């Protein structure tokens, strides 16, 4: 009888998650749990983009607890014919057999969550500084050089073109765009790319200033820009409609992101749909953020995260941000020369569209040289145009590599 009790206890222990750590690749799960704890420390204590990093970290934790059954990466493997038919995911099967995070992950897989987050971002964005100074669009475009530099770098490191495209889009410095592109081009890299993207966005105040100082002279940094003109309500209403029509007609692959961004902005500027605008930027965005962050984190299992690819992603992400900053600042210098000193090159770095962090960095670096220089609103122009620019770049990558 004692033997039976002992056998039962051994059986329970053998089936437990702890035992699974010692079977095969199970140790990787243990390492991922430690990584998840590290990311939670960064999110909570150091406050690195906590709104996304904390759900990502906890999703990582949940998915790497063996036997918990919340997420099954094998469901989303295209070679698994139980769930895939002719290259398409059989959503019904996932709903029947999937765990909690499998079902919530469908929103990422089907490209639903990122556009909804863009809806909320559009509701929170004021495009006034951009409309009043349309030249800022060009600075937003120049900063997207980082995307393509990282793309080439990733190709040189031996990644396939679709993987390189997903890594490159980190340089757009917009989380939902990176997740949208990666979930379509290289879903197996979603976890590391999302972690890299949000970590680097949090590190913008550390990465950008040295590059900005190195590429500009003191005289250029001291330029005080003319006060921006007031933008009328009508302009602010027509802007999102115009941008949607122009971009979606010319580049349909960018339509989900740009369209939802502009829809959110129109809701805000029209002033007649205050209720739903408030919902879009608060409740809806928060719900989607929770689902997106947790499920993206859940895709990071040991096999996909603890390999050389992750190191390459980290290196290329850093490259993307550095070159994007340099590209924006150098284009800013070009505009400084063309406008005979009217444009401060520092606002160019805000084209790396970590809104509003990059604009604040421009403000701060400008104030180091001239404490009375308020560049923040001028930098918001390139900052928000970079969001549009990175969505356009995402459309290009999806079109050419998808």
């Amino acid at each position, binding site marked *: 009888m004692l033997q039976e009790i002992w056998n039962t206890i051994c059986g329970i222990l053998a089936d437990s998650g702890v035992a699974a750590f010692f079977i095969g690749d199970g140790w990787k799960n243990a390492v991922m749990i430690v990584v998840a704890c590290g990311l939670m420390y960064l999110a909570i204590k150091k406050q690195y983009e906590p709104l996304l990093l904390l759900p990502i970290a906890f999703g990582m934790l949940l998915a790497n607890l063996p036997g918990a059954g919340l997420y099954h990466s094998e469901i989303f493997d295209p070679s698994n014919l139980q769930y895939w038919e002719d290259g398409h995911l059989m959503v019904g099967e996932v709903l029947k057999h999937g765990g909690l995070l499998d079902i919530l992950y469908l929103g990422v897989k089907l490209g639903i969550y990122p556009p909804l987050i863009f809806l909320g971002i559009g509701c929170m964005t004021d495009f006034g500084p951009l409309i009043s100074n349309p030249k800022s*669009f*060009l600075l937003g475009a120049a900063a997207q050089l980082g995307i393509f530099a990282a793309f080439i770098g990733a190709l040189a490191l031996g990644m396939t*073109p679709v993987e390189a495209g997903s890594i490159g889009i980190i340089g757009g410095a917009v989380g939902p765009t990176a997740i949208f592109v990666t979930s379509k081009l290289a879903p197996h890299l979603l976890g590391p790319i999302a972690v890299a993207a949000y970590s680097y966005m949090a590190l913008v105040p550390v990465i950008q200033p040295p590059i900005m100082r190195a590429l500009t002279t003191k005289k250029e940094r001291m330029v005080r820009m003319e006060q921006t003109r007031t933008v009328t309500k009508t302009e602010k209403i027509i802007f999102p409609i115009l941008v949607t029509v122009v971009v979606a007609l010319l580049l349909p692959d960018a339509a989900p992101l740009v369209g939802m961004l502009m829809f959110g902005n129109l809701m805000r500027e029209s002033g007649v749909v205050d209720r739903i605008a408030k919902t879009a930027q608060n409740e809806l965005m928060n719900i989607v953020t929770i689902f997106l962050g947790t499920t993206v984190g859940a895709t990071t299992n040991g096999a996909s995260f603890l390999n050389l690819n992750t190191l390459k992603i980290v290196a290329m992400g850093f490259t993307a941000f550095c070159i994007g900053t340099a590209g924006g600042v150098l284009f800013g210098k070009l505009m400084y020369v063309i406008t005979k000193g009217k444009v401060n090159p520092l606002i160019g770095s805000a084209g790396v569209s970590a809104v509003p962090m990059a604009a*604040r960095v421009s403000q701060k670096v400008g104030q180091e040289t001239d404490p009375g220089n*308020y560049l923040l609103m001028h930098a918001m122009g390139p900052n928000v145009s970079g969001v549009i620019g990175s969505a356009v*770049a995402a459309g*290009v990558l999806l079109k050419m590599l998808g």
Partner: protein
Amino acid sequence: MEIFQANVAQSILEIGTNVTAAGILIVFSMLVLLVFVISLFSKAMHAKKEQPVKVAPKAAVAATPKAVATAPVAVAAPAQDDDEIIAVIAAAVEAMYAGTGKRGVVRSVKPASATYHKPWAVAGIYENTIAF
């Protein structure tokens, strides 16, 4: 095998170059187009409003010296808005000196300097940069 690897490397290089060149070109062209369309539209909108509803800050206004309690100051400025602004300023000056036995004289009214920031704007800027 070496030729195959060389071919693969070649084609990856081609893909890389094609995507990069096309990507940068398309992103720039799209945004230049947007600049053009928005500038055009803004100009069209402002061309419609040709009536002088100009805001005072753009016009420098000089007022003749006056010591009047109520009447608006006579000015050489064209737009009606300027008269109203000067009237408000004169009334405020008068209210300031009320009860002190003295009288304020509005000698000239000029727009504030181009780099003047309204207090709310300053507060907003400060709030946005303070945690930084």
